[in-house]
């Protein structure tokens, strides 16, 4: 069986205006009808399992990216994201809509990831990294000097993130990369907002310490 939801979704998003005007798109394939996660969830719970595929397409990369950063392994992150979606599907009826679907989904994925991390405390190199643990970064700057400086910063921050504890790295990814607010972080990590604040402070402080150590090592 082959599912191509993501491609179809992207194409329809691109051409939706024209297609809808022409009346060639059934409601089921109309991306504008799926803007609301609640609608997708309701359809899935009503037995239209394919609709869940749209939720997967919508969140798979965002979730995967977060899990790669937390787990420091692309292969493991993919496994975790798949497990999370399967779990989310089976528990979908328990989603009450009190929070965003992504927050609920992320919590499931985070719990799966943490279980894995607890099983292996050994460092697993990030896929795509060279023997020094450094990643190939895409071009991202206007001038060569700026680009080199940016790349250097990225490498240092990546290395500093790797040196953090799993808990500190996770909360920084949720806040800095995912840009989730304290309420969402509190729900995902299952901790009071006061603890979110204090852990974020410690995580940032530790990140800064690691960065300084890395920079000192590079300069010496």
């Amino acid at each position, binding site marked *: *069986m082959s*599912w*191509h939801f993501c491609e179809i979704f992207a194409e329809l998003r691109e051409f939706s205006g024209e297609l809808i005007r022409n009346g060639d798109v059934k409601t089921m394939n109309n991306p504008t009808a799926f803007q609301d996660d609640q609608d997708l969830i309701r359809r899935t719970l009503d037995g239209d399992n394919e609709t869940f*595929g749209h939720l*997967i397409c919508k969140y798979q990369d965002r979730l995967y990216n977060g899990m790669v950063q937390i787990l420091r392994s692309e292969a493991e992150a993919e496994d975790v994201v798949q497990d999370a979606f*399967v779990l989310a599907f089976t528990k979908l009826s328990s989603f009450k809509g009190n929070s965003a679907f992504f927050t609920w989904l992320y919590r499931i994925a985070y719990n799966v990831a943490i279980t894995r991390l607890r099983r292996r405390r050994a460092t697993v190199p990030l896929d795509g990294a060279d023997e020094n643990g450094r990643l190939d970064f895409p071009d*991202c700057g206007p001038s060569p000097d700026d680009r080199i400086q940016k790349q250097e910063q990225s490498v240092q921050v990546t290395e500093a993130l790797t040196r953090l504890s799993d808990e500190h790295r996770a909360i920084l990814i949720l806040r800095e990369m995912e840009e989730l607010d304290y309420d969402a972080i509190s729900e995902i990590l299952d901790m009071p907002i006061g603890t979110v604040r204090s852990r974020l402070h410690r995580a940032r402080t530790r990140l800064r310490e690691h960065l300084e150590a890395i920079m000192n090592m590079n300069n010496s």
Partner: protein
Amino acid sequence: MSESWENEQREHALTAYFDNELGPEERTHVEQLLENNPDEAELLRRWAENRDTIRELPRYSLDGGFAGRVMAAIEKSSHQHASNEQVVTVTNRAGLDSETNTWRIGLAVIAALAAMLMLTLFVFPAMHESNLAEHQPVISGTGEVLGPEVSPGSMAPNNDVPSAKRQPVIGSLNRSLPGDKNTGRPVDPLAWNSITGPSVEQVLWIENKPLAELEAILASHSIRLVVPDGDAQDQVHLVPQSTAGVEALYVVSTVARMKRAISEMSSESDCLVKVFPLPGGLAGSAIMLPEKAGRENGAAQQIKPLDLTPKGEDSTEIANVDKWFGLVADDDESRIIEFLLLINTSQEAATRVPADSLKPASSDR
């Protein structure tokens, strides 16, 4: 107020300020603090720098087939869950049966006496005229027999049995079955309470395909499995078929979906799909124990496990699904069609058949 407590509150306030999680009043207060504390202002500047760098880190993405793999895993997982539920349900029902056995016997005696009186007075004469016993089908779903047995030929396609008498109660054995693509409704016993098509038209013999995988394929094509209506009497037939190494799946779907499902089965290297003519042309008829056949309906023909083995020329491998469907069905791909799939689940069969050696060079029917 201790110094450590003050420091902690200060850190909380700085963090919340940095994350824009403070109200206007608290925000103003922190900004005043920062004006008088350049070290802390510098700290926030560094945090911001790190945050910006983290946000610019390369993003990872999954390949386009990921959603498909997840959906397949979901279907497999749901299927296993549904199978477990089915076992539990049967077990629980057995438990209930034993607990309420005494009551049932008493009620049954009373009901039987009343029924005998009614039958003697009103029903028996009419039954002799219409011979209703021939009009009730046996339809299997995962080795379970749905209803009373029928005599040979009574389920043949295009027979003249009134549809109301042939329609079994059906529902979804596999809760992972996708909803109906036309209506969007879920497949469950409440959504589907009758079969609209004729009786079983084709019987297929399938080897080297685990039952669970086969059911997953059917589910992925929205093909419905027909299951019993819960009559405890039907459960009698479950064990004999399973122990005989043959599972029977009674499925209902459109020609198009069946075509796709059979095509998928046939395309897998080890799986062998054959057209299987039941002895005596008993398409859709009873698969039952000898003692059951003798006791309940002498006219029903017993199919022994031995008979369920495809024998040479009697069975034909489906090598070209499109062509085969062209021969056995009309061109209306939306037409409802009913199949009986016999799956050889015995260990012996799984190891006995080298699939490639059984495949004829060109055996299009």
